[in-house]
């Protein structure tokens, strides 16, 4: 009785384009990145050169690794605000211990607090079910306190940046920053881990529906503890890379990267509520933020105006991106 044939409506080009991009969520992000670079080039003709590309990569890499920590924890519905402190601690300890210690020992000492903080975070979140925001905030306060106490014991010994870290952080070979030697393997490992390993699967599953994961035999605390330790280790390594880049150990070295790392993950399409997202988007998110920072530095306007613009652009980018991928 209801045989009114529903004619397949001709799909407009705009809709088709949108559908195309929605199925490949990275494309709109890349387009946006290119648009930002073009604007930059228009504002300052000649700025986009080999040297600038290398510099941008240098600063985007530490941000992208920390944003990787956020991506992984956000997949489980968490967040890791202690990455800044952890990175700072490992950097500071490395720079001060290398003066009197064997590099291997200094490296192990530098990674020790990372493992400890990750472990405490993991136990707090995974076993005691403390909200990750509070847990990682608390451990980062505690970590900062310890770092300050520690700092007092090593003021006299001075600090030194190991040559290798310096080479890794600032060096450029054939126009490519040496930091890529660290970043490419790390990025590939994260991507593969998220998509092709049991652990990656569990991160998504736990973040999406913890009870379902439990009924499938997943032990939540194991996943979460491993996750936060991994996140802290990555943050620790980022700290070492970053100290090689900045070459000035301070007690707040990596703190300014924390909020941008969250923003990069979100811009890259990872859901802050868990269960959805990936690392490739995050990398582009980190690049977008780095280019945006440069763009705003170049703009001749009062600092207040710059910040307002930064806020609105981040909001606009995330909103536009969500619009595109939502309508699948």
């Amino acid at each position, binding site marked *: 009785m209801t045989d009114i044939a529903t004619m397949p409506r001709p799909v407009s080009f705009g809709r088709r384009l949108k559908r195309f991009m929605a199925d490949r969520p990275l494309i709109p992000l890349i387009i946006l990145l290119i648009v930002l670079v073009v604007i930059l080039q228009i504002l*300052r003709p*000649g*700025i986009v*050169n080999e*040297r*600038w590309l290398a*510099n941008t990569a*240098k*600063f985007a890499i530490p941000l992208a690794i920390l944003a990787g920590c956020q991506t992984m924890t956000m997949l489980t519905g968490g967040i890791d605000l202690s990455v800044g402190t952890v990175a700072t601690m490992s950097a500071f300890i490395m720079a001060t211990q290398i003066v009197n210690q064997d590099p291997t020992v200094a490296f192990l000492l530098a990674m020790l607090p990372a493992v400890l903080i990750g472990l405490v975070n993991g136990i707090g979140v995974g076993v005691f079910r403390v909200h990750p925001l509070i847990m990682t905030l608390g451990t980062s306060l505690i970590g*900062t306190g310890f770092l*300050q106490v520690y*700092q*007092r014991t090593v*003021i*006299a*010994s*001075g*600090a030194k940046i190991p040559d290798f870290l310096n080479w890794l952080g*600032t060096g450029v070979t054939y126009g490519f920053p040496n930091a890529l030697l660290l970043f490419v393997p790390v990025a590939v490992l994260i991507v593969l881990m998220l998509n092709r390993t049991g652990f990656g699967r569990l991160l998504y599953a736990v973040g999406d529906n913890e009870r379902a994961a439990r009924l499938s035999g997943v032990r939540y605390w194991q996943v979460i503890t491993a996750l936060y330790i991994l996140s802290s280790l990555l943050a620790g390594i980022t700290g070492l890379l*970053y100290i090689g*880049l*900045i*070459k*000035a*150990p*301070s*007690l*707040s*070295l*990596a703190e*300014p*990267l924390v909020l941008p790392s969250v923003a990069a993950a979100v811009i890259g399409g990872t859901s802050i509520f868990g269960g959805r997202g990936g690392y490739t988007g995050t990398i582009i998110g980190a690049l977008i933020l*780095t280019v945006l*920072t*440069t763009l705003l*530095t*170049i703009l*001749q306007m009062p*600092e*207040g105006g710059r910040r307002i613009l930064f806020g609105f652009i981040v909001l606009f980018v995330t909103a536009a991106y969500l619009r595109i991928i939502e309508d699948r």
Partner: protein
Amino acid sequence: AGKYTIGISNTVQGNGWREEMICAMKAQALASGEVAKLNIAHRNTDAAGQLEDIRNLISAKVDAIVVNPADPAGIKAGLEEATKAGIVVVAVDQAVTEPSAYIISNNQEQYAYLGAKWLFQQMGGKGEVFYMRGAAGASADSDRDKGFKKALAEFPDVKVAQEVFTGWQQDQAKQQILSFLATGTPINGIWTSGIDNVIVDALVEQQAPMVPVVGADNAGFVGQLSSVKGLVGAAVTNPGSIGGAGVTLALQILDGKKPAQQTVLVEPQLWENATEEGKAKLKSVVDPSLSPEWPVSISIPDWTTYTKDQIVACKGPGE
């Protein structure tokens, strides 16, 4: 040993300059032999938080409070209450508006003026300067801006190529200078608000043409002034040891030796490496054993009596 309890309030934590200031306070309290206990409130907070700390120190019934004000006017009420409670109040590093307080301060406006003037002279009175300020909205930053603008007004041919806020953060400053260098905009000089060694690093790494750089007397930068080839620059002193001077002043007042004026200004000095004389001075102060963020001027003649070992040990009475 000592008889006094001194309270200390500081609102920036984790910054090399402020850490040195705190250590100078401790070392001076120990060296003076007059202080039984220090009561230190040292954290990251704002003027309202500092009011809370000051009131807590009043509750703790200290004899004197040495404060590095978050804001000259914002803590007036707390300082007034302290004076009413019979507590000696000394502000260090910046002035405060509370008239009953004693002030021993680095002259921030002069700090900027001195460095900027030297820089503009080095530039031959003309050209483009990269102006790297501190944290937007901080009162020390706006004081320094006044000094910088004053010098700028004296050199009409000097132009600001670009003005940025480093937030007094190393990483931010480095990213800013690198981005700026990548634009290829020619500059003739760089003025920094104390985030200096990363700037020189960036110039070296990028093999950019060396231009005169003005910074503060941080150990790292002072070392660079003597060691980096082709670098012409000047360090303007901004001693963190002013904290020790503040403790000395407080003890003098407690002992009944009031100074002639309420306000004592410690005038900055400029150490440059453009002249032989300046180089010699730099050589005498350079101190690679200090953390690069620490100012090398770890003592102030006439005002501090501790030794270098004492300030580096960073131990107060009873520790």
